[in-house]
């Protein structure tokens, strides 16, 4: 009998999606096999965590599990689990082998026969042959790297959110047409294939454009979600109102219900970037001048009602 996914992630059955995600992230950081190269149990543990998260992040699967229709592996009760994740190879499965040298920090291949180099680098001594002995792949890779060119491009927030086409003039006077993909992130690098330098042997490098996204006046972005704030008057908070909220896809009508509190956030589904949402938080503001009418209305109300929002916290300490 496999363990309950809620127990694996250490969350309650009523945990919100955000709590489940946070629990998964914390456990994944701790148990990822590539970050625990010598821990043989990390593989099993991480698989267990991933399977639990895959089940609980999916609303339908989670509901089906809660109803007892599927088991902790996401299989219908009574069926045998398929291979799925079990045949996954982690980076650590390769990093320890000879091919792992490709990603080694020094970039040098380690030849098991070459003790002098190994001991030299291990104990800080000097190798008689230097550290330039690289394989054919390394040569090819570095040459290719040299043929690549790198640029920086500042773009507007809205172009990053919705995508755009831009033209960039290169130092050699040539123009480069760039398609900014929808939802590009700040500092993301875009590749323009074969737009780099041409090497003497005819090989063509790529151009890489590092995108810098300028901040927006009203929108704040987190991943693909957009956050804004909307100001409403006290009368609007009390009586309710329908207002226009600006999103990256244009204005959207939002109904603020009667008696809405300051800080209350409304989710505008699908109005963020790509599959993200727009969250608008309400902030109640006072009129610049508290006139006689308002003061009288409030005084009358206060005299006939015994409302105290601090009732539960007063006298606690």
């Amino acid at each position, binding site marked *: 009998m496999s363990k309950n996914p809620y127990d694996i992630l250490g969350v309650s059955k009523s945990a919100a999606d955000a709590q489940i995600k946070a629990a998964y992230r914390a456990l994944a950081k701790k148990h*990822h096999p590539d970050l625990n190269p010598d821990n043989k149990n990390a593989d099993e543990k991480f698989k267990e965590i991933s399977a639990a998260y895959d089940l609980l992040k999916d609303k339908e699967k989670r509901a089906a599990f809660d109803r007892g229709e599927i088991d902790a592996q996401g299989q219908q009760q009574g069926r045998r689990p398929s291979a799925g994740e079990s045949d996954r190879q982690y980076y650590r499965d*390769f990093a*320890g082998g000879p*091919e792992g040298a*490709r990603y*080694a920090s020094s970039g040098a291949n380690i030849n098991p026969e070459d003790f002098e180099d*190994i001991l030299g680098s291990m104990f800080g001594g000097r190798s008689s042959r230097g550290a330039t002995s690289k394989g054919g792949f390394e040569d090819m890779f570095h040459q290719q790297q040299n043929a690549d060119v*790198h640029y920086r491009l500042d773009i507007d927030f809205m172009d990053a959110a919705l995508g755009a086409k831009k033209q960039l003039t290169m130092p050699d006077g040539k123009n480069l047409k760039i398609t900014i993909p929808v939802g590009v992130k700040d500092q993301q*690098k875009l590749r323009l294939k074969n737009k780099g330098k041409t090497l003497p042997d005819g090989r063509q490098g790529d151009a*890489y454009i590092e995108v810098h996204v300028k901040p927006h006046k009203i929108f704040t972005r987190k991943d693909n979600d957009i956050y804004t704030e909307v100001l409403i008057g006290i009368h609007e908070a009390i009586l309710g109102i329908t207002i226009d909220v600006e999103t990256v896809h244009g204005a959207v009508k939002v109904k603020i219900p009667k008696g809405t509190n300051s800080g209350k956030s409304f989710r505008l589904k699908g109005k963020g970037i790509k599959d993200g949402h727009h969250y608008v938080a309400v902030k109640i503001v006072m009129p610049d001048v508290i006139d006689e009418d308002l003061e009288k209305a409030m005084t009358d109300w206060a005299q006939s009602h015994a409302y105290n929002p601090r009732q539960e916290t007063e006298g606690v300490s």
Partner: protein
Amino acid sequence: MKRANDVLSDLNRLIDEYALDDFIARGWVRPMRDETDYVFDDMDVARVRLVCELHIEMKFEFDAVDLILSLMDQLYEVKSRHDILAQALQQQPEDVRNAIIKNIVSD
């Protein structure tokens, strides 16, 4: 050997081709390339998957992923050297091994 598109399919389109290019531009993933484009072996694919988990799922920012990968690569390099040395020591006559162990323990 796989093409970028196959790698993206393997990952159930968790990332798009622009993100994969970004990983390569940062040196996080270093696939080989032929005349037409990049080719990914199994190790590259495992590495892309790891980067996705760090950057997309665990939400480590660009700088943090740089640091993690750099430390991880150094760790694997040291581990690889350690394994080679351990293997070499294993092949020594028993008295040599004992002498070395004695030396380590007495330090």
